[in-house]
């Protein structure tokens, strides 16, 4: 009886160990399979014609989309970084602890962070595209995205500001600096790496976004003349290509470029965050 019991126990142990290992390996395999499949099928089709400056139905070049993506990133960041930074300066440096404003702002950013991107697209098309009359445009897309990534920028900047030691602030105050000077000359410069990591993360979100852009920035495949022109970012381009049966190879190649850009951006952000953390422990 006892031997049976201990045998059963040992069986359970083996079963649990085996399951844990299997599932962990499965996770790793899923990633390697997805990335590997796209690289293997995409890299051989990275032809020069895919990088021509003008898109045609023949070459389905992704170059205009890459440039459009860069424009979208720059404009969105110009809108969202000051806003997010000022918000976190208020939350960390100015607001009284436990103030009602802080609670409301926290709650609002948390809800904003959970809204699906298609709802942002819906709102953007209602508000920026139609109500404000911006049309399907670079600027309408950037405005929509800046609300979408605002919570991310606020959270990362807030953490960066909080990690600046109070001694810096107190020292500067003791030397007679005003609050503004302390914030801009002392706190912000020391928080730059953390803020940068957040900005890079936001860039990754913008580059990878599709659903919020289709109905706000549209799908025009070439570089826009101005802010009010419709654009297609690389992710949206990827989506359009995947719907066309005759461009599978080009879709694979485009997927390679999009995947690599996003993965590099995320790796850089993670590296900065890691360097920051290890620096703090020392």
């Amino acid at each position, binding site marked *: 009886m006892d031997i049976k019991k201990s045998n059963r126990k040992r069986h359970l142990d083996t079963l649990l160990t085996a399951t844990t290992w299997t*599932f*962990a390996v499965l996770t790793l395999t899923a990633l390697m399979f997805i990335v590997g499949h796209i690289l293997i099928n995409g890299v051989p089709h990275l032809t020069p014609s895919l990088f021509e400056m003008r898109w045609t139905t023949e070459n389905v070049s992704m170059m205009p989309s890459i440039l459009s993506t860069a424009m979208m990133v720059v404009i969105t960041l110009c809108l969202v970084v000051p806003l997010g930074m000022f918000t976190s300066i*208020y939350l960390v440096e100015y607001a009284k602890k436990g103030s009602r404003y802080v609670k409301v*702002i926290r709650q*609002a*950013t948390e809800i904003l962070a959970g809204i699906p991107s298609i709802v942002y*697209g819906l709102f953007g098309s209602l508000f920026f595209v139609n109500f404000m009359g911006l049309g399907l445009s670079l600027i309408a897309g950037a405005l929509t995205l800046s609300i979408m990534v605002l919570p991310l920028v606020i959270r990362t900047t807030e953490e960066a500001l909080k990690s600046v030691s109070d001694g810096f602030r107190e020292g500067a105050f003791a030397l007679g600096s005003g609050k503004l000077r302390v914030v801009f000359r002392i706190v912000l410069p020391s928080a730059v790496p953390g803020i940068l990591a957040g900005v890079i993360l936001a860039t990754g979100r913008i580059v*990878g976004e*599709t659903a919020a852009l289709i109905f706000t920035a549209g799908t025009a495949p070439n570089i826009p003349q101005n802010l009010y022109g419709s654009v297609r970012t690389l992710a949206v381009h990827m*989506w359009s290509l995947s719907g066309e049966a005759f461009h599978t190879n080009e879709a694979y190649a485009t997927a390679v470029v999009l995947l690599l850009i996003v993965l590099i951006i995320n790796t850089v952000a993670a590296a900065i965050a890691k360097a920051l953390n290890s620096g703090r422990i020392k």
Partner: protein
Amino acid sequence: MVGGNTMNKIRKIREFVMAKVFMVCALISVLALTVIFLFLLVNGLPAIREIGLFNFLFGRIWTPVSHPPSFGILPMILGSVYITLGAIIVGVPIGIFTAIFLAYICPKKLYAMLKPAVNLLAGIPSVIYGFFGMVVVVPLVGRISVLLTGGGTGASIFAASLLLGIMILPTVINISESAIRAAPNSYYEGALALGSSPMRSIFFVIVPAAKSGILASIILGIGRAIGETMAVLMVAGNQARMPISVFRGARTLTANVAMEMGYAEVGSLHSNALIATGIVLFVFIFAINVLFTIVTRKHKGA
């Protein structure tokens, strides 16, 4: 002396103005949320009133462009629920076991590989997942479906669940892992000291201690799955009819908006019904947020 005074005044004014500027900026996120909410409600509620709340939520037929049109979103609500449920069935066990592996079992060298891999998985854009689903998952599921049911293209609830199951892995893994790590080590050591094997200590002592954090990770995973658009759009088939089988297509709430927003005439009942679909989606996400807050608050209290 006088110069110093004006300097001081200017400085004070500048301090005051900038303090207000910071506050106004901070309130913009509240304003943005309010405007999003108002715009959805103002455009969506009249449509719900015109269609009738019951007919809208429980109507089984969605034919927005026929005469007369019918706007029932029950097929899409069920589509979202089934696909999310499927994603949970696929992703949660794998995710939790991987989290346990990362927190307690994983050798250091493997950890240095597996952890970044999980984070990379989180960084892959959903349109790439969707493309991968189209070219790999759908044909595979199609073959299984033909074998089992004698038909089907593969673009189905099953394919979408499989793909979403992978997509929610990073959410489930990362949050569960930190919850498991947060469980006091003394529990583990105590269990070992009482003669329990390491595996049994982990599964029957540590995991129960971390259960609210693990639950929170599942709730966030549900949020991610229900809000996902592009990947689902590309693999689920998107037929606006009541789901009949896991091997047949279905349309989610998100896909409903994404598919028809492009051609619905602005201001028409069709377009407003899509906005109302957005409201229903918003309600789902809001409920998930509330649930998450309740679960994590309990955790802090304990």
